[in-house]
């Protein structure tokens, strides 16, 4: 891939705002672009508008002002069903269908797209292997028979099933314990490099943002407070960044003192 196509804007927020019918503004005049192949992290506390921004991309919400473009076309001009099948969507583990096996969960979009059964089966096995689950052992299990980390991997596999060029992830690793979390993070990093998809991740975890993002968009009460590379973010003097750095330093000095 040459640098030209790398910079192609895939998702663009143009003065996008979202206001609840009651008048409360969840997102105010957001201008932000995610380019082809990058991982953009939307970082912020709860209520900062990150999930709202994410839902504007796959048209779970329509902007009340401004617009959001996907592949150069305003989301309101897309057929919502077509748009969503073009975009993988991962939410916290609860998003798996409890009445479907792992295999059926991963096969949801291929089946909606009426793929032939054989192609679906091959694809499911391929994806389970990709996210580090043995297809033989897991395909026929139900979500409640899996650990949190395993469910998370199934969620990622399901979102990737029809090979969408865009992947949206809403606090995807939020429900995992710290150890599983860092394990899944490492795996996801290597997945990121192999997949070359445009990824938008919502998180309130600075460590996660630094680890997974190429760029970090910091949101504060519905407004964009800054866009940084992970390195810039650490040096930004942003209070939450300084706090994080201080925490890491404290941890390091604790390690050294042992």
């Amino acid at each position, binding site marked *: 891939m040459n640098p030209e196509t790398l910079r192609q804007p895939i998702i663009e927020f143009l003065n996008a705002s979202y206001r609840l019918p009651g008048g409360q503004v969840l997102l105010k005049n957001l201008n932000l672009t995610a380019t082809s192949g990058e991982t953009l992290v939307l970082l912020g506390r709860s209520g900062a508008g990150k999930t709202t921004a994410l839902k504007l991309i796959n048209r779970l919400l329509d902007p009340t002002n401004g617009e959001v473009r996907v592949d150069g076309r305003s989301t309101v001009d897309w057929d919502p069903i077509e748009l969503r099948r073009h*975009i993988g969507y991962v939410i916290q583990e*609860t*998003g*798996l*269908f409890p009445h479907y096996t792992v295999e059926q969960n991963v096969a949801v979009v291929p089946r*909606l797209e009426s793929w032939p059964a054989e192609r679906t089966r091959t694809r499911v096995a391929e994806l389970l292997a990709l996210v580090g689950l043995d297809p033989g052992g897991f395909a026929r299990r139900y979500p409640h028979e899996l650990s949190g980390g395993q469910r998370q991997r199934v969620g990622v596999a399901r979102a990737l099933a029809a090979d969408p060029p865009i992947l949206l992830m809403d606090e995807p690793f939020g429900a995992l314990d710290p150890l599983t979390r860092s394990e899944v993070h490492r795996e996801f990093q290597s997945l990121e490099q192999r997949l070359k998809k445009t990824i938008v991740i919502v998180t309130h975890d600075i460590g996660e943002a630094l680890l997974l993002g190429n760029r970090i968009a910091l949101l504060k009460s519905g407004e964009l407070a800054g866009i940084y590379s992970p390195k810039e973010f650490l040096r930004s003097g942003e209070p939450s960044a300084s706090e994080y750095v201080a925490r890491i330093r404290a941890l390091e000095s604790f390690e050294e003192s042992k």
Partner: protein
Amino acid sequence: MNLAQFFVRHGDEILQATLEHIWLVGAAMLLAIAIGVPLGILVTRRPWLSKPILGTANIAETIPSLALFGFLLPVPWLGDRSDRLAIVALTLYALLPIIRNTSAGISGVDPAIREAARGMGMTPRQILFRVELPLSLSTVLAGVRVATVLTIGVATIAAAVGAGGLGEFIFRGLAMVNDQLILAGAIPAALLALSADFLLSVVERRLRPAR
């Protein structure tokens, strides 16, 4: 003549009445499901319809059953055939639990699951048939079970308008002050209710989604 001998001697008639009873209840339940489940779904889609629909079903439920049969008697077409009338009355009784449980089951589906379904590009119809209904099936069935047991009891009143069923024995027994006749209707009706309850609860448990 003791009760056992009575049951043996009148076995054919009791069986006949039981079959009539099953026909009345079965037909009413099929109708009630065919009407109640879509109404229950509608209530979740158009919340403002919730009050009028559930309210009407509630009122039908509170009318004393004997009176309801009586009210329907002069209605044209309905009053022409007594079993037709009985089935319609029983259907009205069975509606409320079915509507209520269908809407409760669908509203009870985890919003995160519904959102995941939407986010993956399922159409509203696909979400309903592939996600919401399968996940609320056991709740819907619990409503069907309650309605069936209720209807089996109320169906004994159908004999009052000449629709047959096990109520025949009960009404005849009351008129003749004959306990055996009353029991010939009441015992099979109770057994019918118990076995319907048991069978449907087995199915319901099988359909309950794992957590």
